[in-house]
Each structure stands twice: as C-alpha cells, then as structure tokens.
C-alpha cells in the first residue's frame, strides 16, 4: 500500500481542527494552573481555538473551486465536495461563536474548565468527519467523536446539578441512539455487503435494487434514520433535548443547537441523496420522503406548542430549536423530488439558523450573573431601557427565528417553502409549516415585549467580556446581513456539488 499525500491536502480542514484540538488540550494542561480570577476564562486558549478555526475555514474555502467535481478519498470513505465544505464553514462559524461566548461565561460563573476549547475543537473535528463521511462506518466514527465531546461539555458545569442531569440524560439517550444506528448499519451491511454510501446508491439503481425491498434492509435503514433523528432531536426522538439544552452551560447549548444540528442534517441530506436516492427506498408510496414528512409535521407542531408554554427563555429557545428542525425537514422532504434544487435552501437555512440560534443563546449567556442565570421571561423585563444594544440584538435574533423580513430567518424559510411548493403534493406540508411559524411569533414576541414594554424589577448585572460582545455583534450583524443580501449566499449554496453514486 502506498501513500498519497494529495489525500492529506484534501482532508486539510479536518486535520487542522483535530490537530488544533490536541494542541489546545496540551496547551491547557501544560500552561499551569490559572489564577483565581481567571478561572476557565484563559483567553489565550480561546485565541488558539479561534486561530485554529480560522485556518480550517481558510483551508475549506481554498478547496471550494477544486471541489466543484466531487472527489472520494481514503478508499471512498471521505467525500470532498462543495456541500461538505459549505457545512464545514457553517460548523466552524458555530464553533467560533461558542468559543467567543465561552470566555466571559466561564469567568462569570467561575468554573475551571480550560478543556472547553479543546473539546469544542475535537467535537467540531467529529462533526467535520461526519459531514464528509461517505461510508456508514466513517459516519458512525464521526458521530461518536462529536457526541462524546458534547456529552462532556454538557456536564462540564460541575457545580450545577442541572448540568450533570442534562449530561446524564444526553449521554444515555445518545448512547442508545448510537446503538440503534450501529445496529442499523450492521443490518444494511448484512443485506447488501457494503457500507459505502455510493455503492449503496449504485445498488438502488442497478439490478441489485431488489435488495432494497428486503425486510432486513428496511429495518436497518429505519434504525439508521431513527439514530440520526435522535441527534437532530426530531419528534418523537426529542425527549432529551429540552433538558439537555437547558442544563448545559449556555455556550455549549449554542454549540449543540448550531453545529451539532447542522452536522446531523448534512448527514441526513447526504445519506438520503447518495445512498437512498430519489424515493427508491420504498417505505410505502412516498419512499423515505413520507417518513420525513411525518417527522417534520410532528417536530414543528410539538416544538412550537411546547415552546408556547415556557416561561424560561433558555428552555423556550430549546423547544424553538426543535421546531426549526421541523422546518429543515420540510426541505429534506422537498429534496426527495426536487433533488439538487433543494440542497441550496437547506444549506442557506443551516447557515442562517446557526448564526441566529448561537446568537440568541449568546444573549441568554450574556444576561446572567454569578449564581443568577436570569432565565425567566420576567427577568428580561426592562432590558431595553438599561441595555438598548443588547435588547436590539436579541430582538433581531428573535425576529429572525420567527421568520420576519429582513432577517436571515425570513429568507431561510422562504427558500425552503418555495422549493417545497414547486413540488406537487407538498402544499399541505408548507401550510402546516406556515401556521407553525405564525404560532411561534407569539412566544418570540413575548420576550421582545418584556424587554421593551415592561419595567425592570431588579438591576441587571450582565457579563462584561469583549469576546462575548464580539460574538453577539457577529451573530446579529451576520443575521441581518444574510437577510439584507441573501442573493450571493443562496447563489453559492445552490452551486454546492455532492459526491454522487
């Protein structure tokens, strides 16, 4: 066997993030114990992590032109295509926002956890692996690498009982989901003799298509879909999400809601497009699209209805992120027939959603002070009078989550609904999604009215950290910019090639 260094160059984004994660881990361990007042908020670690992410982004962007014709490297296990590179950049943006938010948060709440930055990078490396995986085994390894890092991050706030509880729930449910996934992979391998997504796709087209009707193959595929549905917290596989999102340290919640979900959706898109093809995987009349349609309706409706009832802003945003998974699933359903045309809108949605949701969790992280997280809606009353900039940022972010123009959230929904409407028979699905968006406006605006039209009943003591301020500005301006000039991003996203069969 010989070695081809071109393959290393093509997997540079992954290698940079992984190596950066290990270096930051060593830097943390060998740089001595922090002084009392800079617990966990050692800024050189954050700077090292940001530099790593910047280099990785540069590497990913540099491959964009070359990746117009998709390549499969490492024995067909690792796909290098524009789709993966686009999601890479989204992941790096989500990770960078989490890193920016973390410094001030860790310092305010005094938890000694310098490993935070290393774990974010290693988790991102897992997510990148997942996004590029063109083989079920590579997919599983990426998913596990990402998940293990996020479990630890979730439980890293050791003085908070909620954080430990969240980590335990997330870990147990996540391990269960991984078991389902790997069992599904075993069944698919048992019936087809391959774990490669492209080969699976080839089987569907060729004479081997009959294998896709085999009960064992169908059960295996169901298990894989269920395992991935756990990771993106689609109803009815969502039970862990509100508790895990609420209990986790807020920058981690931002990372989970943004990057982990984006990676999960990218995997679903790749798996369905490459391995299962257009509805060739026949579960009933509509193929896998009908499963996704049911998941989409349940996820949107339950997510929004539950979010309506929350008084806790962080938990409300957790439910709202479940609802958003439902909207993206509408795009996945549209992908069954629209094919490549639906990929651009999904990518745009992932980018818009990552910026918006990381930003909104960022404001939640910003408002709390030590021993008082101020998560209740009442605690936000009167914020606009004292901190107008923060209230404005939160308003923009919430309006984007609710889908108001001229924010990124509006165009994200618009593009998804437009591509779904271009396909016959999806009108009812889109109508349900629009009704859901209307419902969601109530709970988003509840926070806005509290901030602007109610009196503060106790003083605010928000986090003061330049990193966090920068993160919030980037997320808010990004959300607005994507909404004001959506054209070039959707243009770019619609040129995203995907390694085929």
């Amino acid at each position, binding site marked *: *066997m010989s070695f081809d260094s071109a393959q290393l160059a093509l997997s540079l984004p992954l290698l940079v993030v992984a190596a950066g994660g290990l270096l930051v*881990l060593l830097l943390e361990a060998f740089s001595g114990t922090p002084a009392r007042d800079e617990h966990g908020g050692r800024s050189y670690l954050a700077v090292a992590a940001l530099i790593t992410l910047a280099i990785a982004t540069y590497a990913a962007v540099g491959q964009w032109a070359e990746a117009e014709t998709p390549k499969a490297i490492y024995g067909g296990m690792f796909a290098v295509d524009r789709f993966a590179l686009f999601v890479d950049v989204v992941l790096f943006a989500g990770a960078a926002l989490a890193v920016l938010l973390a410094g001030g948060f860790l310092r305010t709440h005094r938890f000694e956890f310098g490993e935070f930055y290393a774990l974010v990078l290693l988790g991102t490396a897992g997510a990148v692996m997942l996004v590029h995986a063109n083989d079920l085994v590579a997919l599983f390894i990426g998913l596990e690498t990402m998940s293990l890092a996020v479990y630890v991050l979730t439980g890293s706030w050791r003085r908070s009982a909620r954080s430990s509880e969240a980590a335990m729930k997330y870990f147990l449910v996540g391990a269960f989901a991984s078991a389902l996934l790997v069992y599904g992979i075993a069944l698919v391998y048992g019936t087809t003799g391959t774990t490669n997504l492209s080969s699976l796709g080839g089987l569907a087209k060729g004479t081997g298509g009959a294998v896709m009707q085999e009960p064992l193959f169908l059960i295996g595929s169901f298990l894989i879909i269920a395992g991935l549905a756990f990771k993106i917290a689609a109803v009815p596989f969502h039970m862990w999400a509100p508790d895990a999102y609420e209990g986790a340290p807020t920058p981690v919640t931002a990372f989970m809601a943004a990057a982990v979900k984006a990676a999960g959706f990218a995997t679903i898109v790749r798996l369905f497009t490459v391995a299962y093809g257009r509805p060739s995987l026949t579960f009933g009349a509509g193929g896998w699209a009908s499963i996704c349609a049911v998941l989409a309706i349940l996820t949107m409706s339950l997510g929004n209805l539950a979010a309506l009832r929350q008084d806790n802003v962080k938990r409300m945003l957790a439910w709202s992120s479940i609802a958003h998974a439902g909207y993206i699933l509408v795009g996945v359903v549209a992908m069954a027939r629209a094919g490549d045309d639906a990929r651009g809108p999904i990518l745009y949605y992932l980018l818009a959603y990552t910026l918006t949701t990381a930003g909104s969790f960022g404001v939640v992280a910003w408002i709390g002070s030590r021993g008082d997280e101020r998560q209740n809606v009442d605690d936000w009353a009167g914020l606009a009078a004292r901190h107008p900039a923060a209230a404005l940022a939160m308003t923009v972010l919430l309006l984007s989550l609710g889908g108001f123009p001229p924010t990124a959230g509006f165009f994200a929904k618009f593009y998804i609904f437009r591509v779904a409407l271009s396909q016959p028979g999806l009108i009812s699905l889109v109508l349900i999604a629009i009704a859901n968006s209307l419902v969601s406006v109530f709970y988003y605006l509840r926070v806005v009215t509290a901030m602007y039209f109610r009196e503060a009943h106790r003083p605010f003591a928000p986090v003061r950290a330049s990193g966090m301020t920068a993160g919030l500005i980037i997320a808010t301006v990004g959300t607005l910019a994507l909404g004001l000039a959506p054209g070039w991003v959707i243009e770019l996203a619609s040129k995203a090639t995907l390694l085929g069969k």
Partner: protein
Amino acid sequence: MAADYTPVLVALLFGVGFASLFLLAAATLGPRRDTAEKLAPFECGSEPVGSPNVRFSVKFYQVAILFLVFDIEAAFLYPWAVLFRKLSCTGELVGAVCASGVSFFGFAEMLVFLAVLIVALAYAWRKKAIGWG
C-alpha cells in the same frame, strides 16, 4: 445459507441443555442443609468484612479509564502488526515477499495513532490522574 449456522445452533442447544440439566439435577438430587456458614456471601473463602455497599474512591475509575484506553491501544496494535507487511509494501505482496519496495506508510500510520494517545497520556499526567496521591 441458513444451513451454515446449524453448528452454532447445535452448540447453543448443547450449552443451554447441559447447563439446565446440571442445575436441575443439583436442585432436585442434592440434599439441602443450610447453615449460617453456608448462607454467608462467598468471598473467596475469606470471612466477609462489612457491607459491600461502600463508596469507592473516584481514583479507581480514573485508573480504570486509563487502563481501558491503553488496553484498547494494545488491541489495535495486534491487527496492525499482522498487516504490517502489506501496509509497508508499495505494491502487492507476492506470498510474503514484497518485490516493489517498502514505504513508511504503515509505520507512520501507527505513529499518528500513538501520538494522539500520547497527547492523552500527557494530559492525564499533567492533570495528576496518574498516581494515587
């Protein structure tokens, strides 16, 4: 194809059959005369000391996790060692002979794997996870 698994089935049946046979025989044929000694928990022949529900120091778990990591590392070295010839040969092996020349591919691959684990070891060492003090 299902016929290939008949030996497995036979082995399973034998295993389950013999185990149940002996248990059943012991339960029905053996006389049962319980004494305090016999009913005491068996601890390798020693006298039981205290309740088993004691708290273990978290250090045991640290050692267990570290052991697991390096045990798995060793487990990965075996298949690598078996394939080492093939991985080091630039072309195809003919029998066990590599005519086309050797490369450092297989060696470097394992070095990368070990390097990642050494990072973990260095981290664990700096965090005082090694040692009992």
